[in-house]
């Protein structure tokens, strides 16, 4: 019996020793209070077991007493170890967890606050407190809108109050607001309020969470500013483009206008060129006439001198009476006189046409002018065309340029002569009406077609064969008559003849 107890005790001591070793090894790795206690309890139990072995192998009378003391010590330590291992561990875990959450709560970048159901601030994280410079607990119990974060703006406070009211009704509220920091800077905050309910659905807390979005906001504002700038630039550029376009349009219009002007000027130039050509041709004609004038004046002078002494000599001979009683001598003398007079007349007429005075105030005896013209045309008219003169009995005088008026009637009479092929008649009738001299010159020539009648005073218009007429005669005549305040009229019938009527005002001497 005694051996059996000892064997059990030795086994127990071995197991206990092993357990103690394991506990202390673990304790070494993880120093927890209950493990120490547990180890101590095991050591006590081991000691009890060793004492028991000793008691049963040797006779030790007071060993029973040690065993009882150890049993009494063992139990409370064991209970304390068990307590430590269960409760203490839980407590430590809770503290740890709380520290963890506190850390998260405090160290998050967001502002976090806990409000009670009335909106009083119970807790604020250190991010929030540092932001405004609150010391610990300084804010506790204040209504959230009355804390320092909101003191800068009544408007924002009102927004918050409304938001708290909404959150209290169970809604999650999120809005953008501003807070002021400890340095007085306004920061943009994205704030949310969430209600927390207990298991009976009673409101217990409100969680406020704010995120500083100033950077985002300012970036956004910056972006908006850039966007606005860009839009402005685009607008400006668009406006500039529009303006430039409008300017271009204006320039284009101006160019087109100028083009039109150039075209107009071009056509004016063309017509001016035509005018110039006409004028040049007229000048050629005028120059020809002028040269002719110089020539005839020279010729007239050269003829007049011999005429001077022929007639002088004739007069002298006549005075000496050498013809007295001799009819033949008288006939011969008269022949000299008649010939000399004829030459005198021709030279006088020639002189009229070559007159080169610019005067418009000369006496123009129309009948004399008509006769001069007929003298000039004598060679063409002779033996072919009969001239009927029906002159007015009144004085038929106007004032103007004698040379030019000669040119007009010579031209009209020459045309009349040229219109008659073979034999024919020219009738000249002069009359007065209403202070106007009317000279009608009719021929029995080939006439002019009606549609050509309007063109005959146009420069260069001619029906004559090339080289026979310039087409300028009537044009110049028309110009001269117009200068004298008169007019030219034409009537014609093909193969019957033409009547040209010259109407001139009966002017008096112009007093200059």
């Amino acid at each position, binding site marked *: 019996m005694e051996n059996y107890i000892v064997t059990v005790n030795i086994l127990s001591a071995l197991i206990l020793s092993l357990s103690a070793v394991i506990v202390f090894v673990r304790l070494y790795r993880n120093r927890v209070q209950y493990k120490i206690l547990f180890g101590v309890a095991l050591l006590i139990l081991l000691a009890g077991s060793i004492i028991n072995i000793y008691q049963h192998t040797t006779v030790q009378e007071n060993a029973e007493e040690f065993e009882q003391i150890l049993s009494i010590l063992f139990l409370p330590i064991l209970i304390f170890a068990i307590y430590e291992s269960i409760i203490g561990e839980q407590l430590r875990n809770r503290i740890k967890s709380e520290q963890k959450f506190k850390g998260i709560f405090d160290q998050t970048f967001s502002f976090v606050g806990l409000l009670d159901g009335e909106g009083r601030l119970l807790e604020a994280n250190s991010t929030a407190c540092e932001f405004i410079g609150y010391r610990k607990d300084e804010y506790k119990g204040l209504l959230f809108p009355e804390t320092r974060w909101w003191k800068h703006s009544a408007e924002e406070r009102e927004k918050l109050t409304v938001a708290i009211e909404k959150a209290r009704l169970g809604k999650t509220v999120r809005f953008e607001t501003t807070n002021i920091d400890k340095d007085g800077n306004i920061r943009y905050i994205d704030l949310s309020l969430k209600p927390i309910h207990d298991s009976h659905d009673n409101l217990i807390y409100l969680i406020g969470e704010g995120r500083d979005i100033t950077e985002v906001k300012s970036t956004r504002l910056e972006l908006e500013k850039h966007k606005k700038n860009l839009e402005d630039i685009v607008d400006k550029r668009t406006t500039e483009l529009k303006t430039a376009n409008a300017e271009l349009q204006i320039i284009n219009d101006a160019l087109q206008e100028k083009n039109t002007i150039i075209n107009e000027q071009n056509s004016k130039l063309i017509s001016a060129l035509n005018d110039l050509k006409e004028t040049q041709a007229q000048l050629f004609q005028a120059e020809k006439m002028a040269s002719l004038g110089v020539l005839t*004046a020279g010729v*007239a*002078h*050269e*003829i*007049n*001198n011999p*005429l*001077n*002494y*022929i*007639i*002088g*000599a004739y*007069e*002298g001979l006549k*005075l000496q009476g050498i013809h007295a009683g001799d009819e033949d001598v008288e006939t011969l003398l008269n022949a000299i006189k008649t010939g*000399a007079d004829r030459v*005198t007349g021709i030279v006088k007429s020639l*002189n009229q046409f*070559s*007159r*080169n*005075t*610019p*005067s418009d105030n000369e006496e123009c005896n129309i009948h004399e002018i008509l006769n001069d013209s007929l003298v000039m045309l004598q060679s063409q008219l002779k033996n072919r065309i009969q001239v009927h003169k029906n002159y007015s009995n009144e004085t038929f005088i106007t004032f103007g340029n004698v040379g030019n008026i000669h040119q007009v009637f010579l031209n009209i009479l020459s045309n009349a002569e040229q219109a008659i092929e073979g034999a024919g008649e020219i009738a000249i009738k002069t009359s007065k009406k209403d202070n106007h001299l009317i000279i009608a010159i009719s021929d029995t020539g080939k006439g002019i077609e009606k549609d050509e009648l309007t063109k005959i005073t146009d420069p260069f218009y001619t029906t004559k064969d090339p080289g026979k007429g310039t087409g300028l005669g009537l044009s110049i005549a028309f110009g001269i008559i117009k200068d004298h305040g008169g007019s030219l009229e034409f009537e014609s019938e093909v193969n019957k003849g033409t009547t040209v009527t010259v109407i001139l005002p009966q002017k008096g001497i112009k007093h200059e």
Partner: protein
Amino acid sequence: MSNKPKILYVDDEEINITVFQLTFSKVFEVLTADSGAKGVEIFNSDPDIKFVISDMRMPAMNGLEFIRKIKNVCEHIPCSILSGYQQSPEILSALDNGEIVEYLMKPFNKGAIEELILKHVNGVAGN
């Protein structure tokens, strides 16, 4: 001394001078010159000349230039041009300002010349 009025005729053509002299010698005492220069010389040497007739176109000095020269000496002497040329602007202005009293055309008209000279000679007292 003759009673016939003394006139001066200037023409560069000899035959004109001859005919003129023959034609008018019964009425006037006709002095002649074949150039303006000679005409001036004769005019200056004879204060009895009452009328001057000159051709217009002559070499060296034309009729009007000659007349202006003698008018420098004797302002009131009546002068006339007898020319084969028609009136020119120069002649017209001479008529206008009284340098010449008449412009006569060749071939001359005997009666008209006599009438003209007599009219002026009887109107003026002398050279």
